């Protein structure tokens, strides 16, 4: 009897142990008991033994806690899905690109792809917040757009700057969406940083070609950003202090139906603003970003989201100088004049967006949104003259302001294999023109003022609308054809333009890891923002097409091949060819600030552009060491046949950078330490370089010689800057705390101090001014040369973050 009981007990124990001898078996038991399914990385140690309590008592949460206690595995329950991850990895949502995991019905075990790059849709490339947070960047300012620059086919408008150029297009040819709202001004400080810090964005999806029919309005690329939604289970947040800025984020539930997410960033110099504003001789620059999102979960199938962004830049410049001159009048009598000059300028620019959207399952979404991009500036200049004791003065004040406001209504639906929808945007382009006030003070103290409106204020409304439809038609099990059509309409200043935008892509998938895509897209762009320099400035503003300025139409053919048959590796190759009509550029000049729409139309020329390229990439997607190596070979040219730019001769576009290599590797040393190393090489940008001196007939002068000597550049973009290369490294040191974790980030930007040109200026030599920094005795006096200045050399980064 005793033996029987022992055997039975042993058997029971064995059964109990065997039934729950591994985590996996325990998971299966709970799956059957609660009707759940799991989503987890195959590298999780679910085969380890389970020595915990029995799993048949209590709630699901309690049993999961017992099962995974001490296993190094964390879990989160979403509806009927349980998502598993390793402990101390960043937020669960950031790890997965599932938009609505609660809607999955079956157990899915996915290959563990380090959440660096994803393929959310065919033809798209996605990065997650983890990617952005790991990427080494200047001064530790984690930036979505600068992370995208590490991908093949994407480059910065200028070295170190955030504006992006996709497949050779200008920065205004890239559509940047934040929760479906177009962002018209995405840069801070002339493009050094973007307005998208890492905390504000959950994921970013990049299209370089094969654009879905639901996207339009820009010619060369789409960056679709989704803000982070709030956690529905508990409140969490954190703050970060870096060399340049302070950041915070917080998200959590409000009751059972609501969640809130908020983040912000501000430069340290913001604190100095009250002081510098009172000082005559101090300038300042600061900016802030604020993001917020409120989600209302009406049901499992419906959600309403209210999200918004507000950001602002302020740049104060003060300049004081004096000059002492000894002059002779027309009777050759000598006199002395001292000039004091005080100059104070302020530039402010910013962006605000708000979006209210209703999402129904994964079949439909309707959004009402508002966006505003604005710039305001003024300048006060005062001159004080003292001519042998006789005092006179002059004062000039100039001011200008522009803004672009959009009210957007958009709806997108999926039914079966079909997708369709439409959008309408009412634009308001407002310019306060350019006004000035000139005041003079005579020696008798009499003041005369003359106000003037140099450019009159104007408001230009415009209507932009589009409807689209596409289908995803499977042919067999390996091929899928996606035909689509987008019909866009633009009305402004009495003219209506309607353009069909056909889209077609064919996808082929083999069963052994091979994939191929081929596609054609036409994109039409009705707004232009031409840079007056090589990078973007807030004074470069958007203008709608009007008059003889046609929309930019871009036709792109792309081929892509990808192989994922090697576990943990992905190889891809892409080819593209792009033809554009209606590209615009300033006619050998730039438009002054506050210029009217009519004047802008007359100061630009329309032409044609073309681009082609090859993008190769090798990615390692699993294991402690992940990353990618990409190479891009590309070229882009422009030509303005009417001859107003470069005399009608084709010239390389300023975005034409022939070779580009991007390397990025992240080594997760352990759960506390990860190291990311990035290396970039790119051919130099073409610039316009004066090569000789010449004379120009100057009838504006009242003298008879009518000649002005100038530096002459024979053609546009006739000189290529030297190539740039740079290595950056960043180390994240994490320590879990009682509540949350602490992260120290240490990095070096431009690790080996490569002398990449961050500034450049045109200069001339001197063979007589010995000791000057332009003294070249072996060169004839006045020989033109280009001086590049590299200052972003071995820039350290330190930041402290605390998450809870």
């Amino acid at each position, binding site marked *: 009897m005793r033996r029987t009981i022992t055997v039975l007990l042993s058997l029971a124990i064995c059964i109990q142990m065997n039934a729950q001898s591994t985590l996996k078996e325990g998971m299966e038991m709970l799956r059957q008991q609660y009707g759940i399914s799991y989503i987890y990385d195959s590298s999780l140690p679910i085969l380890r033994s389970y020595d915990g309590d029995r799993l048949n008592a209590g709630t699901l949460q309690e049993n999961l806690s017992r099962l995974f206690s001490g296993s190094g595995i964390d879990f989160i329950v979403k509806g009927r899905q349980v998502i598993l991850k390793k402990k101390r990895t960043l937020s669960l949502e950031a790890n997965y690109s599932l938009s609505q995991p609660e809607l999955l019905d079956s157990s899915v075990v996915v290959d563990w792809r380090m959440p660096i790059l994803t393929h959310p849709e065919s033809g798209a490339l996605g990065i997650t917040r983890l990617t952005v947070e790991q990427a080494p960047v200047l001064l530790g300012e984690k930036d979505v757009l600068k992370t995208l620059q590490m991908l093949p086919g994407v480059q910065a408008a*200028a070295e170190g700057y955030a504006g992006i150029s996709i497949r050779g297009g200008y920065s205004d040819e890239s559509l940047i969406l934040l929760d479906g709202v177009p962002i018209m001004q995405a840069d801070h400080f002339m493009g050094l940083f973007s307005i998208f810090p890492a905390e504000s964005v959950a994921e970013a999806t990049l299209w370089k070609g094969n654009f879905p029919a639901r996207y339009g309005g820009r010619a060369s690329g789409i960056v679709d950003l989704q803000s982070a939604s709030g956690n529905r289970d508990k409140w969490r947040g954190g703050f970060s202090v870096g060399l340049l800025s302070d950041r915070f984020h917080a998200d959590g539930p409000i009751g059972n139906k609501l969640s809130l997410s908020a983040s912000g960033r501000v430069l340290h110099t913001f604190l100095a603003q009250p002081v510098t504003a009172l000082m005559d001789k*101090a300038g300042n620059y600061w900016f802030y970003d604020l993001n917020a999102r409120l989600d209302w979960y009406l049901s499992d199938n419906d959600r309403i989201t209210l999200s918004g962004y507000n950001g602002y830049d302020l740049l104060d410049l003060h300049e004081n100088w004096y000059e002492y001159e000894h002059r002779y009048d027309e009777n050759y009598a000598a006199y002395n004049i001292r000039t004091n000059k005080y100059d104070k300028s302020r530039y402010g620019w910013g962006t605000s967006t708000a979006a209210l959207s209703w999402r129904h399952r994964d079949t439909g979404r309707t959004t009402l949104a508002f966006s505003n991009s604005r710039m305001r500036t003024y300048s006060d200049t005062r001159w004080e003259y003292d001519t042998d004791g006789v005092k006179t003065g002059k004062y000039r004040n100039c001011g200008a302001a522009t803004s672009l406001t959009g009210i957007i209504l958009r709806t997108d639906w999926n039914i079966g294999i079909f997708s369709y929808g439409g959008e309408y945007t009412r634009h308001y382009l407002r310019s306060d023109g*350019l006004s000035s006030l000139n005041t003079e003070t005579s020696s008798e103290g009499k003041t005369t003022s003359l106000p003037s409106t140099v450019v009159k204020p104007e408001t230009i409304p415009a209507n932009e609308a589009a409807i689209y439809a596409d289908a995803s038609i499977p042919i067999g099990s390996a091929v899928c054809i996606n035909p689509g059509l987008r019909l866009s309409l633009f009305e402004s200043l009495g003219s209506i333009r309607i353009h069909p935008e056909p889209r077609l892509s064919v996808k082929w998938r083999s069963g052994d890891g091979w994939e191929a895509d081929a596609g054609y897209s036409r994109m039409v762009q009705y707004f232009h923002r031409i840079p007056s320099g*090589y990078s973007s400035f807030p004074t470069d503003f958007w203008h709608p097409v009007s008059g003889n300025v046609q929309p930019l139409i871009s036709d792109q053919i792309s081929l892509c091949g990808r192989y994922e048959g090697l576990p943990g590796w992905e190889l891809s190759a892409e080819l593209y060819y792009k033809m554009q009509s209606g590209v615009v550029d300033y006619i050998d000049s730039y438009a002054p600030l506050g210029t009217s729409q009519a004047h802008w139309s007359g100061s630009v020329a329309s032409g044609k552009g073309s681009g082609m390229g090859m993008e190769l990439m090798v990615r390692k997607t699993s294991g402690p060491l992940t990353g990618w190596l990409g190479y891009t070979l590309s070229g882009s040219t422009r030509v303005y046949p009417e001859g107003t730019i470069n005399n009608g001769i084709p010239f390389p576009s300023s975005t034409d950078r022939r070779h580009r290599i991007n390397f990025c590797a992240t080594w997760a040393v352990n759960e506390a330490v990860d190291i990311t190393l990035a290396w970039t090489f790119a051919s130099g940008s073409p610039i316009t370089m004066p090569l000789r001196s010449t004379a120009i007939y100057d009838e504006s002068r009242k003298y008879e010689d009518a000649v002005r000597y100038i530096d002459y550049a024979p053609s546009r973009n006739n000189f290529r800057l030297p190539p740039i290369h740079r290595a950056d490294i960043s180390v994240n040191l994490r320590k879990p705390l009682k509540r949350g974790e602490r992260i120290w980030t240490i990095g070096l930007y431009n690790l080996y101090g490569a002398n990449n040109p961050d500034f450049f200026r045109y200069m001339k030599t001197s063979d007589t001014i010995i000791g000057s920094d332009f003294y070249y005795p072996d060169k004839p006096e006045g020989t033109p040369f280009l*001086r590049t200045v590299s200052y972003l050399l071995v820039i350290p980064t330190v930041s402290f973050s605390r998450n809870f």
Partner: protein
Amino acid sequence: MKTVHIIPLIIFLASCTHDYFPTTGNENTLICMNARLNTADTLHKVQIKGSDVNRTISMTGAVVTLQVGDAPSDTAQVRSDGFAYFNRTIKAADIVTLSSGNASATVSGLQVPDGVILDASYSLTGKKATVKARIRRNPDTDNLYILQLVTHQHAIRDNDKEVLLDRMTIYPLNLESYPLQKYPRMFLVDSDAFGDGDSCDITIEGDTDFLRGYNTHSMSNKFLRIDDNKQVFEPESYTRTVLFCVRISALNRDDYWTLRYLVDDPAYALGPNLNGVLSMLPLESIPRTYPGNVSGGIGLVSVRSALEIPIAKWVCNYDINNYDNPDATPLPLQ
């Protein structure tokens, strides 16, 4: 001393400079040829300079050829002032070819629409002169014009009616040396000037001596003449007439943009600080590449057609024996 306080938030730990000398592939001297031929003039001047890598050189003595339509060509040599002068009548529709050395340009002009100047007037109040012009908008053209003040001076000796002076002088009409400019580019008319209207009013005000009158002492030297014995003598008495006209010339786009480059003060776009910022920032503003239509060389040649409207007339009698002759005042035309 110049102190600049600019606070970009970039850490300047160290900086490194590097100088690049572009190779042009062509180190030879290029002919730089500029001309603004006007159909209202009979005397035309063509500016010729030599362009080297590091300097501009004089081309005195260079031969310039002017061909107008099917008429025989003229040649002239470049004088010490850098210009070659031609005495020809040119119409807007004429095909004009200028050449010098390897450089040549072939152009024709734009017709100024009839009645483009709706009204022009001059008034003088104390030391302040005002010139006003109303320009009509033409829906078929770019409406690019340049306004200039032209004076036609004649001096005739009273006793024998010998012509002592016959000169036309063109003033830019921007009065750039004078303060209180109301419109920085006031002598250039473009679409901005019209706004939504069918016409635009150009008003120039200033304290201008040349519109007030001519000081007899300062002007007397202009009538000094040298006889065959190289003796200087002055005429006894003469009548001098100055006719002030507003001239409007139609510009093509290249011509207009070249003028814009010359007169646009970037400071008008909100102060020199913007330029200062632009010159400091990574990748400066794109330098201007001036329009040119001279093949084999550099420069811009254009033909402008013009209309003139007289706005004031000044008449003065000069007597060498009477230095106290009071200054006359220009009279608005009746």
